[in-house]
């Protein structure tokens, strides 16, 4: 470790102003601050305390929180693939198959996304932002495993440039970049993003025959079709042994991630709790009407279905696109939960409403903050006594 530090210190002058490689300063800086906590210290003026917990370090916590979902997702992909084609496979075969399926998605997401980030950072003479580290990791987890890589690449280009860089890069984006990727794919290539065969690796390929009686439909699709009886057991849905996008099936793995995020204080528990609360209340309201079997589905089961848990823990809590005020977080999370279930159950065109609900609330987050801050100012102004 010491060796690396010394080496970096040795080559550092080359990248500073006037050095040989000055134009690659952004790239160098990105690598250096990724490896080591930057040595900037608080100046003697002012009362700020500088923590070692900079943005890169906090991103890495999210990274770690996502790993259970990723590992489980890899196994799950293999599991369903071999199940669909009637082959027996050991645990490691399933995991290995899934690993090889998910790895290209990860690589494409990172190479394309980071490439654009670095390009813009160099061009604008900024530091390379660490914002894409988490987005790039999230993207493969929320798309169907068989998404063609070129489609993913185009979606990443779209999301990073039009969803993020035009607004000024990390920290300035209105929409969650990972969900923008998914929304782009969903509207641009609907055939690859919904249906009964996109969730199982290999099922989209022509000529591949699944065994008789196998259906790749997700529990969500079964519920939407009113076949409540066809849904897998609650335990399977909780553990995540169901078809779905790579990383979102297992509520258990997501919960592990949630614990890490809440414990370290990086994800806002208020958003998670209020989003689940919003979803439950909307579910109960629908239960009151109970016009069809889907509306009769117990509210708490909605939490196990589709991307609700994943969205609540990893997407809605994105610190950039969520509300910033504490009161705003309650409102934002609650409305996201309500909208997610509302879209999911009542709009037949969109089988899953979590993505659209979060994107929609991302847009409204600044407005919520605006009114929360305004209300606070008004409340405190009442206490002001004007001396006459």
């Amino acid at each position, binding site marked *: 470790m010491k060796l690396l530090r010394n080496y970096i210190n040795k080559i550092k002058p080359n990248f500073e102003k006037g050095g040989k490689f000055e134009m690659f300063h952004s790239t160098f800086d990105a690598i250096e601050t990724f490896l080591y906590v930057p040595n900037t210290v608080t100046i003697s003026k002012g009362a700020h305390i500088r923590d070692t917990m900079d943005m890169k370090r906090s991103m890495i916590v999210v990274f770690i929180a996502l790993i259970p979902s990723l590992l489980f997702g890899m196994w799950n992909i293999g599991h369903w693939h071999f199940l669909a084609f009637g082959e027996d496979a050991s645990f490691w075969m399933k995991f290995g198959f899934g690993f090889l399926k998910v790895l290209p998605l990860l690589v494409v997401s990172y190479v394309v996304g980071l490439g654009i980030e670095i390009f813009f950072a160099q061009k604008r003479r900024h530091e390379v932002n660490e914002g894409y580290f988490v987005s790039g990791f999230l993207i493969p987890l929320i798309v169907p495993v068989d998404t063609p890589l*070129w*489609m993913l690449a185009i979606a990443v280009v779209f999301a990073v440039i039009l969803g993020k860089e*035009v607004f000024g890069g990390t920290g300035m984006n209105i929409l969650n970049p990972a969900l923008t990727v998914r929304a782009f794919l969903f*509207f*641009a*290539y*609907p*055939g690859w993003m919904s249906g009964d065969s996109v969730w199982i690796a290999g099922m989209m390929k022509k000529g591949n025959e699944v065994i008789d009686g196998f259906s790749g439909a997700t529990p969500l699709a079964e519920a939407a079709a009113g076949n409540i009886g066809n849904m897998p057991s609650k335990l399977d849905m909780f553990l995540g042994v169901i078809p779905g996008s790579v990383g979102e099936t297992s509520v258990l793995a997501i919960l592990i991630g949630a614990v890490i995020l809440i414990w370290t204080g990086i994800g806002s528990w208020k958003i998670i709790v209020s989003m689940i609360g919003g979803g439950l209340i909307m579910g109960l309201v629908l239960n009151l009407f109970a016009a069809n079997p889907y509306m009769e589905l117990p509210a708490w089961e909605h939490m196990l279905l589709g991307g609700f848990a994943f969205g609540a823990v990893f997407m809605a809590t994105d610190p950039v696109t969520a509300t910033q005020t504490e009161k705003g977080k309650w409102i934002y999370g609650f409305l996201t939960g309500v909208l997610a279930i509302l879209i999911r159950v009542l709009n037949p065109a969109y089988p899953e409403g979590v993505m659209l609900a979060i994107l929609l609330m991302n847009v409204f987050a600044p407005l919520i903050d605006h009114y929360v801050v305004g209300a606070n100012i008004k409340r405190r102004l009442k206490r002001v006594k004007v001396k006459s």
Partner: protein
Amino acid sequence: MKDREPLFSSKNLKLLTNPLNDDNPITVQVLGICSALAITAKLEPAIVMTFSVVVVLSVSNVVISLLRNYIPPRIRIIVQLTVVASMVILVDQFLKAFAYDVSKQLSVFVGLIITNCIIMGRLEAFAMTNKPWPSFLDGIGNAAGYGVILVIVGFFRELLGSGELFGWPIMEKLGIYNIGYEDNGLMILPPMALMVVGVIIWVQRAKNRELIEDK
């Protein structure tokens, strides 16, 4: 007696070319966006729309310019509207007679040319205070500037959205589908027109930094 200004003096030429570039009605003045979203999913209606607007705008510009000294200021908007409406009806009838299919595709948007902000804008800002010939050039220039953007947007949306150009399946002929390419369904949806216009605005402002608005 004063020398007559040549028909295509540099000042008059500017009227024609400025709207194509640094004074573009869509990308710089940000007018007429609504129709740019509505009819650019394919190239053909975009081009027909362009010609319709060229005719409507240049003729009404000339008419208003001829009448400019006789229009009482208080009712000028009504007079302008009447002129534009008559022109729109003429164009609409012409399209129905000679290009029925396209007219069907454009549906209400031909009639809605009357609400195109570019047209009223030019009548108010230019034709009311200028002679007929410059007004005519100004009308053609602005309509063409509008048309250029429509055609660019229409080109990308039809090419990437349906894999065709003027309805001719160019992507299929090139054999791109065989290597796994698929049409992008998002390009046909209206929001994408807005984004393509946004990208054009971005590119234009990156080339000419003077166009960037002050914050």
